[in-house]
């Protein structure tokens, strides 16, 4: 459902993403790992159509994000890093706005908003202004936004970043549940998350894939039975040249 083919991104002379290829099938949750600055967010921004790739392409349900961006974007739900929101709106007004921007209107829009609010447990804050929300609620509001149009593909950039352990657990369960019917690509720094929620994981370093497999395979690859050891072995420190 997500097919990334030779995707590259160059910022000036710096190569952020270097001929990356991978695919995510329906019913699969792909964990996207890598140190800071490895090109995870850049890759996600290209796949969602926010950044145009320098070369290569990503196909969402067979539709190229480069050639038919509008059609491809309709299939994607996206949670950007740090969950950006319009602080001056209430949760429900924000979700209604996003639903309308996604082309939903009338009852379809209201039903979609109600469903998202329920899925992300936002009932208690629905009429609250977004700038008064805690980080956990902010994250879930942004996640709700990505689910409005019931997309076939979900792309989540660090969905559990900054959440407390309870919230992390809930979001992981949610990802797992959604992953049964969708294709999900999510990035994380928390390696346990990979075992808890992913059916497959890739490790990226300096714009290239350095490891790829199911959590069990990756742990076997590490030789020590720990994902952290494998991660440290295949990736470079950001201080290294």
């Amino acid at each position, binding site marked *: 459902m997500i097919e990334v083919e030779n995707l590259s991104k160059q910022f000036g002379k710096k190569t952020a993403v270097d001929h990356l290829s991978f695919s995510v099938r329906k019913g699969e949750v792909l964990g996207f790992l890598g140190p800071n600055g490895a090109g995870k967010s850049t890759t996600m921004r290209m796949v969602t*159509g*926010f950044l145009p790739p320098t070369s290569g392409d990503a196909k969402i349900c067979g539709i190229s994000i480069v050639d038919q961006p509008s059609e491809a974007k309709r299939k994607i739900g996206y949670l950007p890093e740090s969950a*950006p*929101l319009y602080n*001056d709106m209430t949760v429900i*007004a924000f979700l209604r706005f996003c639903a*309308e*921007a996604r082309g939903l209107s009338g009852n379809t829009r209201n039903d979609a908003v109600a469903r998202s609010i329920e899925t992300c447990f936002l009932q208690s804050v629905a009429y609250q202004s977004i700038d008064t929300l805690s980080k956990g609620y902010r994250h879930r509001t942004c996640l709700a936004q990505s689910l409005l149009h019931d997309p076939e593909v979900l792309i989540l950039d660090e969905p559990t970043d900054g959440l407390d352990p309870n919230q992390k657990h809930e979001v992981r369960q949610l990802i797992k549940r959604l992953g049964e019917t969708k294709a999900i690509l999510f990035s994380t720094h928390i390696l346990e998350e990979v075992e808890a929620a992913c059916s497959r994981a890739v490790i990226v370093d300096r714009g290239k894939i350095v490891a790829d497999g199911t959590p069990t395979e990756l742990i076997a690859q590490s030789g020590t039975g720990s994902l952290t050891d494998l991660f440290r072995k295949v990736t470079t420190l950001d201080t290294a040249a």
Partner: protein
Amino acid sequence: MKNVWTIFKRELFSYFNHPIAYAVIVVFLLLSMIFAFTLGGFMEVQDASLTYSFFAYLPFVLMVLVPAVGMRLLAEEHRSGTIELLGTMPISMGSVIFGKFLAAATIWLVALLLTFPIWITVNWFGDPDNLTIISGYLGGFLVACCFLAITLLVSAFTRDQVICLIVAATICIGIVLGTFDPFVRAYSKALPAGVSDAIRSLGVWDHYMSLARGAFRLQDAVWFGSIILACLLGTSTILTAKRA
């Protein structure tokens, strides 16, 4: 078009949730009235029209205040990261910019309409040509739209609201003062007559004052329309190119 409406609604709602719209409207009303009653000599001139007492001073007020309304339109999206949400929705950059532009233009429509007491006054004391006044308001609104489009174009280059405000205001002040008749006369003495005429018809006054005097000419519509359109298209192109 539906997307433009969605963006427009959100942006307008956001304006009325922020003090900036109210502040700008109040300052605008104060300044435009002060100009009308002092420099314009509204009470003294015995002329039942608003052309030279009120409309003639509007560009001086608008050149500074319009950039203050437009500066946050794009900067805020970049600062909060919501540009990433908009950029991944099936909405074109053009409709985002146009929707935002219309929302800010509506603020100026409201601000201009709120000067209605001066219109009531002039009708109370005299018998003005109300069509000329409507034409003057249309001119004022077009000047505001034009400055707004310039502000948007500037804000495509910078993410900083203050820099955007300063640069956009400087450009607008340059357009207003640089083509203001007494100034043009002063600095074009050494130039051939054709040059100063060209400067005048390139600038805002020629087109605006003809509307304020009640004359609707095709060249004025083309002048305002092409500046607004060029700036908005430029904004969209630059924003798209910057991501590549």
